[in-house]
């Protein structure tokens, strides 16, 4: 974990002082964002532990099994972030075509017999005991790929805004993995990717017509999907249960109903970590992943659950500052894409726990258990940090 600066040089103290010297990378990192993400990780770890410690069918004899795996995932995620900062987003820009190609290949692999189905979503790759969700990586590579295309001529000073041709290319680039993800089907990820595309187009300065056109297509597409029966029954049922939670409270509406009861019963201060009866009674499904916010709501109350929203707000607010603070359009677009991603995914995840959004299988960034998603969000943080670190000194 040692080296933000060039390492292998002098004793530890010197390294540290260099690390925090004026204009050093560490000094220029966005610390509020970093601390907020670390705080979210700590809270998430506690919640994962609370949700899994007595679930012997998951953890066996070791109540810490999930916690340890979760901590390992965070560690790897932080490592990936450091690597990303160290490489720098500009360096990565050159590798974008390769990264994009690899991620699309992995997504395609899901459609082969290598893919596995978890919770109705055929979105996983089983690589010898290691489960990967390639669509999480695709979120990153769509952002990077689109940003590369859209910013190329603007950053070169050729144009003020990306031209139609470029926009079309960028949309095509995004469309391929989105289509594949839809085939899985992993509707949650498709929605996030659509939001990423929207955020990216917004920040790229593409003409208003594209933005409006995209919104219109999105609406028409949603309608078409609904009408043409592309969705599986369980997905339609989830939406129906969202529209009317009283519908079949022991069936489809059960999850949303129990989630709301869990959060509501937490009150202001919650029942205390490990004491939530809804949590320990396992009334809410997927408590360590998609519905982890219900554990926060029940056991930590309004203060704890509100803190999670606040910390996510800090991350997003700092990300917005980074997006506005950089001079290159490339960095701005990447930051905006990440903002759209995090904001929508967090809103969808917490919103479904609170009963204001339909149920879709999406993890809560930094908090939910799940390796691939943890790696992806830390890489995104690395990208944001890199954009901030590498901005011109005058800013």
């Amino acid at each position: 974990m040692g080296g933000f600066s060039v390492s292998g040089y002098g004793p530890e103290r010197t390294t540290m002082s260099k690390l925090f010297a004026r204009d050093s990378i560490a000094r220029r990192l966005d610390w509020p964002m970093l601390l907020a993400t670390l705080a979210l990780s700590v809270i998430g770890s506690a919640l994962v532990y609370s949700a899994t410690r007595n679930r012997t069918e998951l953890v066996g004899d070791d109540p810490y099994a999930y916690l340890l795996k979760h901590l390992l995932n965070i560690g790897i995620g932080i490592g990936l972030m450091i690597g990303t900062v160290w490489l720098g987003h500009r360096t990565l820009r050159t590798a974008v075509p390769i990264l994009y190609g690899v991620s699309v290949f992995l997504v395609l692999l899901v459609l082969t017999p290598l893919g596995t189905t978890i919770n109705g979503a055929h979105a996983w790759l089983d690589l010898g005991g290691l489960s990967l969700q390639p669509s999480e990586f695709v979120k990153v590579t769509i952002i990077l790929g689109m940003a590369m295309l859209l910013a190329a001529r603007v950053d070169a000073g050729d144009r003020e805004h990306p031209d139609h041709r470029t926009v079309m290319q960028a949309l095509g680039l995004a469309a391929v993995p989105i289509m594949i993800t839809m085939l899985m089907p992993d509707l949650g990820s498709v929605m996030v990717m659509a939001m990423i595309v929207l955020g990216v187009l917004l920040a790229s300065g593409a003409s208003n017509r594209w933005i409006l056109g995209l919104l219109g297509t999105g609406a028409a597409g949603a309608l078409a999907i609904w009408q043409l029966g592309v969705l599986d029954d369980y997905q339609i049922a989830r939406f129906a249960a969202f529209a009317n939670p009283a519908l079949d409270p022991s069936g489809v509406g059960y999850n949303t109903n129990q989630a709301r009861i869990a959060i509501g019963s937490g009150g202001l201060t919650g029942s205390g970590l490990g004491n939530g009866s809804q949590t320990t009674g396992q009334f809410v499904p997927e408590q360590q992943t998609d519905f982890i916010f219900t554990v926060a709501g029940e056991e930590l109350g309004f203060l704890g659950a509100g803190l999670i929203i606040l910390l996510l707000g800090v991350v997003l607010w700092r990300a917005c500052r980074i997006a506005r603070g950089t001079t290159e359009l490339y960095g701005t677009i990447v930051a905006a894409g990440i903002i759209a991603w995090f904001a929508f995914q967090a809103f969808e995840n917490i919103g479904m726990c609170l009963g204001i959004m339909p149920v879709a299988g999406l993890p809560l960034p930094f908090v939910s258990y799940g390796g691939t998603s943890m790696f992806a969000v830390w890489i995104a943080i690395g990208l944001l940090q890199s954009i901030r670190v590498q901005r011109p000194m005058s800013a």
Partner: protein
Amino acid sequence: MTNIPETGRTPRVQIRLIILQILVLSLLLTLGGRLWYLQVRNGDEYADEANGNHVQRVVQPAVRGSILDARGVPLADNETRLVVSASRTELMKMKDDGEAVLTRLAEVLGMTPKDVADKVRLCNAETPQPCWNGSPYQPIPITDEATPKQALQIRERAEDFPGITAEPTAVRRYTAPGSARTSQVLGYLSPVTDEEIQGAKDTDSPYLRSDQVGRSGLERTYDKQLRGKAGVTAYEVDKLGRVMRQTQAEPAQPGANVVTSIDAQVQRVAEYELNEAMKAARKEFDDNTGMNYKADSGAVVVMESKTGRIVSMASQPDYDPNAWVGGISGKDYTKLTSKKSNYPLLNRAIQGQAAPGSIFKVIPTTAAVNAGYEFNGRYPCPSSYSIGGQVFKNFESQGHGSITLGQALEVSCDTVYYSLAHQQWQKDGGNKPRKSAKDWFYKTAHQFGLGQETGIDLPNEVTGRVPDRQWKKDYWAANKDAWCKQGKKSGDYAERIAYENCLEGMKMRAGDSVNYSIGQGDTLVTPIQMATIYAALSNGGTLYDPTVGKAIISPDGKRTEEIKPKAHGKLPMNAKTHDLINDALAGVATRGTAAWRFGGWPQDKIPMHAKTGTAEVYGKQTTSWFATYTKDYTIVMTIAQGGTGSGASGPAVRKIYDAMYGLDAEGNQDLKKALLPKPQSSLPKIETDGSIDVPKIKPYEPNKEKPPAQQELAAGLAPVNPGRRD
């Protein structure tokens, strides 16, 4: 880079980024707001829901308290029986709605499949009994008389009997000590209904699904005290119903015991003698109708004169209250509610009303004194009294010359009262009543407590009726349409009456007043009302609310809450009049219409007072009434379509007194044989373990010697035609 500003972006991008930031902020605010709404604003509601979610309550029903007689003999207690129950929810899950299981069960229990199926069907408007009127989620008892062998069969072959349980359960038992049923007074239980659960939800004694509720009699009046509190053990369970921990354990609190003033032995005598009297009456020939007396119903009340406490209360026809235990069968229910059985569920002591006949005369006597007539004045007692061509005859058309009011009571002279009532009617304005009409005869009846409930601690008491001016008006308004339609000026008797009623039924006519004055016409009273009045004559004038419940004693015997006698009025007479009436009623027992029933009675030791009554009922045989009292007790008996007061009811009342005081036919007292020579004043002792030191009940052996009536006849002491004198 010429067009690009120093920040590296165009204003368009800047604006778009600000829009993005605002969007993000509003999303987060939405989440925060919704979170506040769920957790802070509606948090309590969800907390309740979460509790309901993961808490499973296991209910242990409380053992119902016993109903005891005055000395501690249980009239109603509990026994452990093997109850076989079916869970409807389980049965309904099966393809054939559990039919196969129920058929197998019927075979094991030796019942027909239909009987079993009927027991588990739910009651509704179209479904006759038997049916289940409790909660469909509660196990429904099929039988509470399973043998251990049957229970074992069901348990061992559990896979053949899904949803069927066989458990030892405490069930109600009506012990009938010494064969005293006390049916209507005790009442019965049946499962609680959904409406009752809803209704009592927020009270301090909510019902449980498995509760049995008192439906009538003492079981209903003292239901809250008897019921106790069910034990609840709450377990926290997970989604799959696995118990995680026990969160609450409230042990069941057994119900309190209700000590009554009923004496089981006297009750037995009263029930037996009432029944015997009715049987005897059915052997008597009624000259008026040309057939034997039907004696289709009857009641007797034995009351402590000085407190209004009920020593025994019997009503015929009666029934075995155990028929209700464990769910009543269809046959039994039909039997208990059919016209053929003459409604044995009715407690005729408080729910049977009839014209009182001459036992009413203490009221017009008091009314006359209050209206200014001298008690010891002389009043003509001719054989008949006529008003405008209408002749009102004395009973048996006997005349007695000029007599006092006391003698009028003794010989039960109707014409004395006819004349007094007629005079008062005229004074009040006759057919054109004055506004200041005194209505002495009616006012006095109200003051005696007639036309209203006595307030006895038994449910559904009826009020009877004082047919005063207001009642006449109300009754006419309610019935005039029917009368006017049916009435014919020159039709048969009923049509002529209807015609007359249509024209002037709202008026108090001379004939109405005259008929009323001897307790006839539209006057209606209940046996309990007359017992209250005669007890007041015995105790110096206090009208007590009759009570059956005497005390509530906690199951461990430590807390006792006495139910004190409560008065609802005083007789409207001064001490002098009171004494004179007492003397006259003693005269009835020694010289008057009841004398032939009290031959050999030790009047000097136990002064007896009595009044006989034979009320005429249009279209039916006469109602026999007999009202009596000593210093300590008051007994009122009535038999519908039973004949005369002294004739039909006399011997039975005498025998009840004999048994209580330990008298033989000659009037010799043997206190060892006496069941209750003095009212029971102390309460039974209940030990801390709930056991009671119960005295032994001697079965009643009725006096097999010749009944005193016939002895008197044989001795030639009885006047002519004794059966018809009232």
